[in-house]
């Protein structure tokens, strides 16, 4: 391929079987640098299975994953993360008993004095940086030194997303980031996603909300029954076409169907 450098993530015949169940069949997926794409599909279409393979949560039955032109095999989510793939899952990976800066910097703390495990934390610097990060995302959290467990679902989701967004990651994957959020909080999360686009950070968004998908991404990948059934430019399609790809039926989509 001549445009190899342009592509950050590519999968070749990626397949995952659970016993006799073919959850994902020969998925050929590409993501360009700076590109924002959505993965849509019905429940059980293989979206989450696909994401679990590329984030190291599970290992594929067959097929290859290429990240930045290199063939990769992630044995754990940590390895994927170390390679630069950050994911924000539906079940948040936050420590409820820690404050915002501690969660943002967990595992990569700023230090005043280095001495192995007994290195002294630079709490001021972490608080300062956390404030900057959250200011950029326009999230309103009155007191960052509160425990994350005492915050609202939206605030927690924003902390989780900022956490991924604030560390120069090479690829961010979000699985239903706004599913449990209110209107205002959803807007905030969408603003964070737009910010990532401006910064040129590529994103894979999994969402059931087609309006959100059309608002946010460049390209839509449609999954149906474990297979990729379509790859369409968002600006060149409409809700009806996507829905018929998702369901596999040419017609029968109601004009006023609420999922559009």
């Amino acid at each position, binding site marked *: 391929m001549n445009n190899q450098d342009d592509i950050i993530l590519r999968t070749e015949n990626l397949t995952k079987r659970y016993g006799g169940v073919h959850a994902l069949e020969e998925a050929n997926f590409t993501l360009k640098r700076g590109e924002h794409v959505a993965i849509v599909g019905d429940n059980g279409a293989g979206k989450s299975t696909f994401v679990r393979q590329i984030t190291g949560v599970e290992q594929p039955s067959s097929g290859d994953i290429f990240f930045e032109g290199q063939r990769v095999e992630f044995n754990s*989510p*940590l390895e994927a*993360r*170390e390679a630069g793939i950050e994911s924000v899952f539906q079940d*948040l*990976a*936050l*420590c*409820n*008993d*820690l404050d915002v800066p*501690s969660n943002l910097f*967990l*595992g*990569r*703390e700023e*230090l005043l004095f280095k001495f192995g*495990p*007994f*290195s*002294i*934390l630079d*709490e001021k610097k972490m608080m300062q940086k956390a404030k900057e990060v959250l200011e950029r995302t326009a999230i309103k959290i009155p007191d960052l030194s509160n425990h994350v*467990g*005492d*915050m609202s*679902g939206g605030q*927690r989701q924003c902390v989780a997303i900022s956490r991924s967004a604030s560390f120069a990651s090479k690829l961010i994957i979000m699985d239903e980031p706004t599913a449990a959020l209110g209107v205002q909080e959803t807007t905030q999360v969408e603003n964070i996603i737009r910010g990532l686009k401006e910064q040129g950070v590529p994103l894979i968004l999994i969402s059931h909300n087609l309006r959100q998908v059309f608002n946010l991404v460049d390209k839509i990948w449609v999954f149906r029954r474990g297979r990729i059934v379509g790859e369409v430019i968002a600006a060149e399609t409409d809700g009806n076409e996507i829905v018929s790809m998702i369901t596999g039926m040419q017609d029968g989509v109601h004009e006023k169907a609420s999922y559009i």
Partner: protein
Amino acid sequence: MFKRANLPAEASIFAVFVGIAVLFEILGWFVVGKSFLGNVQRLEIIILQVCIFGIIAVGVTQVIITSGIDLSGGAVLALSAMVAASFAQSADAFAPMFPQFLGSPIIIPIVVGLAVGAACGWINGAITAYTGIPSFIATLGMLVTARAVAVIYTEGQPIYSLSDSFTAIGSGAWPVLIFFIVAVIFHLLLKHTVYGKHTYAIGSNERAARVAGINVRRHKIMVYTIAGSLSGLAGVVMCARATIAQSGMGTMYELDAISAVVIGGTSLFGGRGRITGTVIGVCILGVITSGFTFLRIDFYYQEIVKGMIIVGAVMLDQRRQAQRRLRA
């Protein structure tokens, strides 16, 4: 008006402590016609009584913050004390265990005692971290085993004739000072270092900690090893103070330590707790023990009250956690 949220969590525990002390003072005047707090000697005894299991409690606090438990404190104390004492006998000891170590510098028995405790703690941690066996079972096994090894070590014989320089570390205010220093060190480590941050993180959400790149297994082993070393230190201080080591030392100390930690507000669910709370918890247990003795109330009544306080403290914690889950 006073806003409760602005007070540190320890304020309420401290209020309980003061309340109990004042209660004993009042009861003292009515029942025995004497002042409870007005007796300096009694206060000294309270502090000396509690500081040994207090040292264990500092380690147990950290284990409980990772949402584990360490039941082996008292047994590890006994084993460490036996081994340390065998290296600390004075030159005139009858039939010493290690004649070649007679009169050696006191650093040797101290280091040996700490090392025995650390080894026990390491085993606790490794079993818990690598086999997935609950820490309750792993450390229960250590409780039984360490106590048995302590008996076998001298075939049940106590170790006498400890050198004067060794027993000096258990005399006067030294045990209290050691407890205080240990508490301050680990308070600071928990609050201001990566070690502390990761300890809380693991207790709060182990999966999140792992995904964030923390080596959870290695960290847990470190926490249990520290707890074991502190039990070892408690053993060294206790046999130095008693000028004798016996395999039955420190029986039930693990329960006193766990009680102090729980009373001090550390959550058994993990992720929450502080050394300052534990220190107050230790003092509360000390005051109760001393107060009941002062009122000449039978030992077993004292145990009943302690039992109720522990269950009450855990119930309170459970309610707090349930309220948080509702809010989130």
